[in-house]
């Protein structure tokens, strides 16, 4: 982890390399995070990759309902030489859930982006094959969004069964 000072240095570098890309920084419980403008995510990640954060450990979505903008796309980066971790957070709204794909930079982002699209409905522009990965192709809705019903089935247990098959037949 970069310490709080190191985080500010990285943020300053990013501000110079890609103006208006950094919205905020936070350092909480030893974890460094940078909140970025979603439209600038490729530039930011390109810069960080060149700087040594060559491994995308995870890419995942979050629904911050009821806060706006609701959806978050989080990139967890790892510098494998320095053993340094950094979280990059971008927030997009549900009305316009678009962010550009980073498959060109990190080929391993392919499936995580598909999963994020599957579960949260974030559209990754420029993704080579953006379709559902876990849910069936014809599934409607994005089940990990907070306003999606949990679903499930009412289950017939013995205690609420009118006729107990196999016992009182």
């Amino acid at each position: 982890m970069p310490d709080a000072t190191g985080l500010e240095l990285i943020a300053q570098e990013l501000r110079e390399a890609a103006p208006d890309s950094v919205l905020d920084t936070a350092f909480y419980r030893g974890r460094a995070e940078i909140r970025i403008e979603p439209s600038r995510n490729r530039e930011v990640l390109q810069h960080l990759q060149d700087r040594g954060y060559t491994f995308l450990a995870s890419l995942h979505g979050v629904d911050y309902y009821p806060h706006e903008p609701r959806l978050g796309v989080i990139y967890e980066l790892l510098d494998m030489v320095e053993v340094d971790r950094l979280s990059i957070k971008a927030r997009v709204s549900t009305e316009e859930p678009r962010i550009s794909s980073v498959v060109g930079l990190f080929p391993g982002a392919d499936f995580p982006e598909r999963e994020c699209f599957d579960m949260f409905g974030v559209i990754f522009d420029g993704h080579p094959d953006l379709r559902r990965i876990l849910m069936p192709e014809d599934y409607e809705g994005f089940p990990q969004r907070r306003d999606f019903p949990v679903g499930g089935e009412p289950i017939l247990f013995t205690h609420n069964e009118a006729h107990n098959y196999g016992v009182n037949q």
Partner: protein
Amino acid sequence: MEIKREVLTTPQPPVDFRARQLFARDMLRGQLEGEDLERFVEESVLTTTVEKAVSWAMGNSIYPLTFGLACCAIEMMTIVASRMDIARFGFEAFRASPRQADLIILSGRVSIKMAPIVRRIYDQMLEPKFAISMGACCSSMGVFNNYALVPSDKFMPIDVHVPGCPPRPEALAHGILRLREKIQGNAKDGWRARYDAIGTEEFTDPAGDERHLESYHDSIRVIEGHQRHPPFDEVGDASGA
């Protein structure tokens, strides 16, 4: 209550082991005659029906399918190991092909996307076939009662549900023994006959397969004395006209 002691009128077999041995030897040599021969046959021959014998054999030679869905599969593997050793009951040979298996154990959660595949595997198994739903997830969806899963009763006939999360191997062994009881007690071929579902078969081309369906129903009717389901008569009439 008064106890009466009296000599039984029916002939008693010799109690001494050596005497029984000599008795059997004489029988094999054809030297037993008359009452002795009657007595020998009475005590050494057991009569039953073919149906009972077949169901007894069927219940003691189930081959489960090598098929695991989730964490319950780990418990399922345990029942073939030395502690539970399901081979004692003739269940030991896990078959890797649905064509050779009699029993499918749904060991884990079935997602909506997996359900058609499970059903296809079940359809590929040959009759008589049986299904055990193992664990909470595929019986009542357990802790995963949400958008992603489907209970197994929704898409295939289940013979035995084994509750637990996951069930201990003992529980699964108990479930298997209950299945054995079921097979031996009620020797109906085919799950459609067992669950009164004859006529629910699906074919891609009902007219083309009508002849096979006819013979299939004939065979079932002979075995079970079942009536044919009306919708298929209608299908038959429509294609014949």
